[in-house]
């Protein structure tokens, strides 16, 4: 029986079509995985269902009735409950208060705490939990908090339960606990939407899978009928038939080793890894969302300092305890989310370009204005930044040009090792090619690069070597002719030795 039907749902944001005619069905008594890489439209779809966003076109029917919730509370009343990755309850209230918040039993207008405790205990027994409901929720583990959040969502809504990466911060045993609860709810006839980027969990738990990519539905299939390899093809969007052959950049001869990272790792971010980067070499990092690519970069750059391991260059060991130390060592990092971590939107193009250089010189020695102008003009020309002038606030430029400004800032500091996290995300096709061209230019001049990208073609086109990550581990290294879409995807898809739950 179909519980929730979504037909040609469309949601447009300025500049992008986040959802483009998406269809989605949820049956009562099934767990339906919703998968896709960053920007595929998963969260937009969920937000349209839970009333956080208003859709631009399309229909949503629940139990045969068309619905259009305008707030999460309204969606809840209609029967759609949501549990997010970050726990959605208040750690400073007791378990009982959290479970029954807003629906506390009252006597003579006052909260009846005895009835409150009793009702809370009754709810939790259904989930096999025997907690002291008078204790603060915050004193329980995240898994218990997550189950309490599920219990509250089900009690409030009771038809559709959306789990948005509910297991992201849980260990394997806790994931098992949460799965037990979710399976129990499926057997009670709820329709459950499960969003996760842990493929093992998806295969272990779900009945059907829907894959979104670039705001479109790619496929909906029974989990049992879909194998890992095909699923990853759907998610990354390239069939093996139209393989782009790896055309390695003209052999540049053996590269002098430059940087060496040995056993670097950080608990909860990335398992210890070894990585060597040669002079003028491009190392690509491939893997699905959440596999530890960005975490690897952040560890190297000292943003999340490594807890184990060491780094060294040809002159001896390097200390990379903070971004400042990493910059002093000649590193640069253009982060994934340039809007929040890269540009300073209210400052002008010129100010953004000189920012890094000025910080290195120290504020006591300002860069002369003429020099600033020269630098800005120079990079506008070299990187072909489309702007009406160097004094335009960077926030008003297009995504591709903002990215170029971030690059210009690093290039002005002349680093020897530059990390680019998703350098082409959200950039139009023309600018895309220019950025790739720029990467080749930089390598020609002897700079070493670490490039992270979800687009395999891009990685294949620029990398001398590709490291594949899965579940926060570096699992494979591909060199030269080994690099192809197929080998990368096989490395991602290879079933891990120990399965989670």
């Amino acid at each position, binding site marked *: 029986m179909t519980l929730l039907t979504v037909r040609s749902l469309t949601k447009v944001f300025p500049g992008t079509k986040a959802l483009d005619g998406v269809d989605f069905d949820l049956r009562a008594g099934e767990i339906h995985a919703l998968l896709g890489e960053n920007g595929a439209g998963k969260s937009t779809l969920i937000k349209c269902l839970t009333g956080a966003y208003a859709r631009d076109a399309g229909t949503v029917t629940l139990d045969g009735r068309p619905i259009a919730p305008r707030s999460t509370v309204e969606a809840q009343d209609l029967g759609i409950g949501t549990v997010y990755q970050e726990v*959605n*309850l208040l750690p400073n*209230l007791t378990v009982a208060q959290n479970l029954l918040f807003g629906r506390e039993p009252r006597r003579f207008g006052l*909260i009846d*705490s005895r009835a409150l405790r009793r009702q809370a205990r009754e709810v939790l027994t259904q989930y096999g939990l025997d907690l002291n409901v008078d204790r603060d929720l915050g004193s329980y583990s995240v898994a218990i908090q997550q189950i309490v959040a599920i219990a509250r969502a089900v009690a409030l809504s009771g038809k559709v339960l959306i789990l948005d990466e509910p297991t992201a911060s849980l260990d394997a045993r806790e994931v098992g606990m949460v799965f037990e609860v979710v399976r129990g709810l499926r057997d009670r006839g709820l329709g459950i939407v499960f969003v996760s980027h842990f493929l093992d969990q998806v295969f272990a738990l779900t009945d059907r899978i829907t894959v979104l990519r670039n705001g479109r539905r790619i496929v909906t299939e029974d989990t049992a009928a879909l194998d890992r390899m095909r699923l990853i093809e759907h998610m990354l969007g390239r069939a093996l038939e139209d393989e782009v052959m790896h055309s390695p950049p003209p052999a540049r001869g053996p590269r002098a080793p430059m940087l060496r990272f040995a056993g670097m790792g950080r608990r909860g971010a990335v398992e210890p890894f070894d990585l060597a980067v040669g002079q003028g070499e491009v190392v690509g990092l491939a893997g699905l969302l959440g596999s530890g690519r960005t975490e690897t970069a952040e560890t190297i750059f000292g943003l999340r300092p490594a807890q184990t391991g060491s780094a060294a260059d040809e002159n001896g060991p390097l200390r990379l305890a903070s971004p400042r130390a990493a910059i002093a060592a000649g590193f640069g990092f253009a982060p994934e989310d340039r809007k929040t971590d890269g540009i300073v939107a209210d400052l002008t193009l010129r100010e953004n370009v000189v920012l890094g250089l000025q910080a290195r010189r120290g504020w006591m020695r300002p860069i002369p204005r003429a020099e600033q102008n020269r630098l800005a003009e120079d990079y506008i020309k070299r990187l072909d930044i489309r702007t009406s002038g160097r004094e335009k606030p960077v926030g008003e430029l297009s995504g591709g040009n903002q990215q170029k400004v971030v690059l210009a800032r690093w290039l002005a500091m002349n680093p020897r090792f530059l990390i680019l996290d998703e350098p082409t995300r959200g950039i139009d096709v023309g600018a895309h090619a220019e950025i790739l061209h720029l990467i080749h230019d930089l390598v020609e001049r002897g700079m070493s690069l670490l490039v992270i990208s979800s687009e395999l073609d891009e990685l294949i086109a620029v990398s001398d070597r590709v490291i594949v990550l899965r579940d926060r581990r570096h699992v494979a290294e591909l060199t030269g002719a080994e690099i192809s879409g197929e080998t990368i995807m096989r490395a991602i898809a290879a079933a891990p030795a120990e399965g989670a739950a």
Partner: protein
Amino acid sequence: MNTRALPLYVTIAIFALAWVVCWLQFPAMASTRVIGNLLTDNAYLGIVAVGMTLVILSGGIDLSVGSVIAFSGVFIAVMLRDTGLHPLAVFALLLALTTAFGAAMGGLIHGLAMPAFIVTLAGMFLARGAAYLLSIDSVPIQHEFYKTLQGAYWLMPGKGRLTLIGVLMLAVFVLGMVVAHRTRFGASVYALGGGEATARLMGVRQGRTTVLVYAFSGLMAGLSGIVFSIYTGSGYSLATVGTELTAIACVVIGGTLLTGGAGYVIGTLVGVLTMGLIQTYIVFDGSLSSWWTKIVIGILLLAFILLQKGLVRLSQARMAA
């Protein structure tokens, strides 16, 4: 036991210990006279601290209350001097005024998404200025009804006087406890203090709760102003300067987390009494300067802030383990 209750137990333990130390030195400390005076002398502070407790629990702050108390005193004194209104009518008028004043500040804080610190700071200057506007000089209150109020007490065994305003403060604390711990409004206040975004997700009506919290604080400040005018028998625009800070200190010493979301109204009562106890000790001793009160309060405050930081660390470490 919940870790957030720990500061409350520490407060009670410190208060009990301090009392015993005082009592060993001055046995008269345990007499009902001292106890009666402790309640009477701190009645206005206790009442305003109840309002402050709710504000702080919600994650806010109200700096205007000291000025509102002074304004209330002057307002009552001037109204009784210049109009023929009965004090009870003046009280009703005043409470409506201060409650509306608090609600307006709450409305601004929510509506303009401005920090409570700045809005209530403006409120503080406004109320103080309004008090000056009414009268620069101290205005005595000479109404027959006031004499009745001031003379109303119950003689406890041991000749201690349980005054009307002392009883009123205790009643206000009971009211505060019921509101904070036994109503949905109270639960919303704790929820807001725990995290605004999450509270909204859980269905808290943020605007309504914010306005009500500051309105409640305004009401308490007005009530405190009435009590203060009964206590001093006059209205003076320069009175109770800095009382808002003393009230905040009482709340924090009482175990409420300054960032909101955790604490108990009863803790504030213990905080007020602790402060009163120190003052009483200084009076008994006779040789100590009254500035010692401030020094001890400062040390206590610092100790409590450190204690709370330690507890937060502790619970985080437990979560990580």
